[in-house]
């Protein structure tokens, strides 16, 4: 926050990867963070999930790249809100699994290899700050928990949602296709017969792609939505480049054409 004027002085377009300009109001920063010292910039800054705010991003000079877990979650749920399947009154459960690079390059006892490897470790059972971004996007309550798993790059969100009205698989395919058919960085992966039937972080490691998919549970009218990104790309640096490409009028996919590796282990 304190350097933002210097950065904007130095460049026409600033993309901030931190959370400093993601939310809309000082009140939200008071609730979720430790307040905000430059609230007058919150209105100006544009939140960058390009898939959600493409128009606003064009020409924007202060861009706040979305949080990694928020990005995964929002991309998974968006078609359900866009398609009127959810309206914000439903209970949404979001269970996220993340890799160690989410914690940055710093070292601590908990992040040492011997302690951090092989884990399925709840680390933010409640109160994760990315909830604020999801709630801001959809105007809904979310029940969000994150787990550390043994992977370096990647975030996978599983959303369990219960629409007020029953839906069909066809409705879901329709909604997801409607939202994402023209998106360069979103791949629908839902079902099929191979090894990769649903979104997985290792399938997008190193890329700016998000994979999204779903399954419908007939017995209880639950939809399970899966989404997977690489937190270092679609969850941060790639998203930033994508947003900058839009802001500056470049080809959206410029510099972001890596397709990933197969096979790959814990990326």
């Amino acid at each position, binding site marked *: 926050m304190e350097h933002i004027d210097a950065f904007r002085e130095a460049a026409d377009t600033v993309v901030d990867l*931190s*959370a400093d300009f993601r939310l809309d109001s000082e009140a939200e920063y008071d609730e979720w963070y430790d307040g905000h010292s430059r609230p007058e910039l919150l209105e100006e800054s544009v939140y960058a999930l390009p898939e959600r705010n493409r128009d606003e991003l064009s020409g924007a000079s202060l861009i706040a790249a979305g*949080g*990694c*877990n928020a990005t995964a979650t929002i991309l998974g749920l968006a078609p359900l809100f866009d398609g009127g399947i959810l309206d914000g009154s439903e209970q949404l459960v979001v269970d996220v699994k*993340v890799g160690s690079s*989410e*914690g940055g390059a710093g070292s601590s006892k908990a992040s040492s290899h011997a302690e951090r490897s092989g884990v399925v470790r709840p*680390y*933010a059972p409640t109160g*994760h*700050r*990315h909830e604020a971004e999801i709630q801001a996007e959809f105007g809904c309550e979310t029940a969000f928990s*994150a787990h*550390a798993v043994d992977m370096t790059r990647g*975030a996978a969100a599983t959303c369990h949602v219960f629409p007020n009205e029953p839906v069909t698989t066809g409705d879901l395919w329709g909604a997801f296709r409607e939202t994402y058919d023209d998106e360069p960085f979103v791949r629908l992966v839902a079902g099929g017969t191979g090894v990769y039937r649903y979104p997985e972080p290792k399938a997008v490691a190193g890329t700016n792609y998000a994979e999204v998919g779903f399954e419908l549970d007939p017995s209880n009218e639950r939809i399970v939505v899966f989404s997977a990104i690489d*937190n270092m790309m679609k969850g941060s640096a790639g998203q930033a480049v994508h947003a900058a490409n839009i802001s500056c009028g470049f080809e959206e996919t410029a510099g972001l054409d890596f397709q990933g590796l197969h096979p790959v282990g814990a990326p």
Partner: protein
Amino acid sequence: MANCPECGAELSLHDDVETGEIIDCGTCGGELEVVATGPVELETAPELEEDWGE
């Protein structure tokens, strides 16, 4: 003798417990701060924020 404000477990404290002291609850593992003595009152100590996934 005092109860953990977090989980309700009974804690047996040593005799010369002092205000400001930090005590771990053996049951829930919570860090407790002694805010008064005679009788002893405990509060949950403020936690260090971990900041993953920004």
